[in-house]
Structure formats: structure tokens, C-alpha cells
């Protein structure tokens, strides 16, 4: 049974999840399958790109963040998925061996007008590397069940 429902979140809520280390092998494996650009695959080729060296696909950073939030929060939450993402900013490259952590806060909440069993909690997530650099930010309205079901 989920521990957390829509009603458990409000502005002022904060959390931190991770760390999760992103190995060179995982980074290249993701890129080979989903984003096979030289800057994500090959150290020598990446040196000559704007990243200045091998960097993770931004989608991989999103996926790693998703996993930290799933493990830390969503698997204990009455999550119904997300209808989308308002905005993602990729601020700095994620390098092989970086350990990422994610810090979150609640921006706002609203009960669904059309469906009384659910509501939306908008989270602002910030991903940091182990040098303290902010590498990514993301704003997402998460759909959660209300505690009393179809109240």
C-alpha cells in the first residue's frame, strides 16, 4: 500500500535522494542504445565537441534522476505517472563516474477539477554532481491519487 498521497504534499516539502553513480559503461551503454552521438560514446571524439569530453546523454541524466525519485519517493506514493514535463535544463555535462543526487521541492498542488480521485503536485527537482555543481533542473506536475480515493 502506498504511504503517500496527494494530500501529503504542499509547498515547503523538500527531499534529497541518491547518490547514484553513473559509470562510464552505463553511460556509453545508454548512449549506444538511445543517443548514439560521438560526444556521448567516444572520449577522443567528445574532446572535440562543445562538451569538451565524454558526457552523458541528457536523456540518460533524466532517466537516472527518474530512478532516484522512483526509489526514494514514487514507489511509496500513490503515483499515477506524470502528464508531462514543464521544463528541463541541462546545465553542465555529466561525466563518467559522477555520483548524482537529486533535491526536490514542491512548487504547488491542485486537485483535479474533472476527476475527484486525483490531484497534481508540481515538483522542482535539481540534480547535483559530487563536486556540488548543479547539472540539471526539471519541473514536473506529478499525478497522485487522493487519500480518500474518489472522494
Amino acid at each position, binding site marked *: 500500500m502506498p504511504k503517500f498521497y496527494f494530500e501529503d504534499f504542499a509547498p515547503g516539502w523538500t527531499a534529497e535522494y541518491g547518490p547514484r553513480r553513473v559509470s562510464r559503461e552505463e553511460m556509453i551503454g545508454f548512449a549506444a*542504445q*538511445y*543517443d*548514439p*552521438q560521438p*560526444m556521448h560514446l567516444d572520449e577522443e571524439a567528445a574532446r572535440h*565537441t*562543445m*562538451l569538451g569530453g565524454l*558526457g552523458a*546523454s*541528457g*536523456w540518460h541524466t*533524466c*532517466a*537516472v534522476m*527518474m*530512478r532516484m525519485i*522512483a*526509489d526514494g519517493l*514514487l*514507489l511509496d506514493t500513490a*503515483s*499515477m*505517472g*506524470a*502528464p*508531462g*514535463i*514543464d*521544463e*528541463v*535544463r*541541462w546545465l553542465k*555535462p555529466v561525466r563518467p563516474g559522477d555520483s548524482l543526487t537529486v533535491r526536490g521541492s514542491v512548487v504547488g498542488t491542485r486537485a483535479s477539477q474533472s476527476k475527484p480521485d486525483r490531484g497534481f503536485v508540481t515538483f522542482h527537482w535539481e540534480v547535483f554532481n559530487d563536486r556540488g555543481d548543479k547539472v540539471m533542473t526539471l519541473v514536473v506536475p506529478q499525478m497522485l491519487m487522493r487519500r480518500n480515493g474518489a472522494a
Partner: protein
Amino acid sequence: MRYFDDLQVGDRIELGTHLFTAEDIKTFASQYDPQPFHMDEAAAARSHFGALCASGWHTIAAWMRLRVLYAQREDAERLARGEVLAKLGPSPGFRELKWLRPVYAGDTITYASEVAEKRVTRSRPGWGIIFARNTGTNQRGELVMSFIGSGFVERRPGAT
């Protein structure tokens, strides 16, 4: 890749299709998004989705793959014609991502990309940023996802 200066708002490309098998959906989910409705048919049947469906991140990762493969095919054709390739840089981010409908096991998604906006950057001389509206449509013709992506694209040498 074509140079920033040669891309026009409204330019649209069809990227190809991706079939989401149950096995692929679960493999991606087990690594990055292990919520029950992406992992297990029975749990998904009890959820509001009603059946096993792909992580939204998986539906975009498949778009990215097809976008890169398209660019590689296009580059090969340009090289064969003796043309110079423009460099493609990283992306500063994206916005307005909408997961409009679930992508269920067995769905085939057709992806497309259309130039929505061009912006010259002061911070990176020699580069511009292209914003593109990227979409995925299922085999029933329903839009399943849409977002405004962005990426650095090299400017034509000497362009101002």
C-alpha cells in the same frame, strides 16, 4: 546536419517508427522507472492505465535514437554529394513535454520533428539554437507525445 542558417521554421522531417514490445518496456522500466504499471501486466491492468505501458522517458529515448539515426543518414548523403557537414552541439534543455496517451505494449510509434524557432546565441559565437516541436503518433493516428526540444547547430562560416 544542415547549417543553422539553412534551416527554416516549418521544416519537417519524418524520423521513422519504433515498436514497443512488452519485453523492451519492462527492460527500460526495470533500469530507470520501476513503477508497477511499467513493470508488470497484472499490476498495470489494475492501474488507471489498464494495461502495460512504456515509461514516458522510454517513449522519448526512442525518439532520440531515431533523430540521431536520421541525422547520420542525412550526413552520409551530404558527404556522398561532397557537401560540408554542419556540427551539431548538445542541447540546453527542452520544454512543454506532454505525454498525451499511454504507449502500450505492441504499439508502433511514428516520430517526427519540425523546426519551431531559431535563435542566435551571443554566448556561443558560430552557433545558433534550433527549437523543434517533436511528436510521436501511434498506429491509430493518435498523438501520444509532444515536446519542444532544442539544440546547438553550427552557423555557416561567415554568417552574421
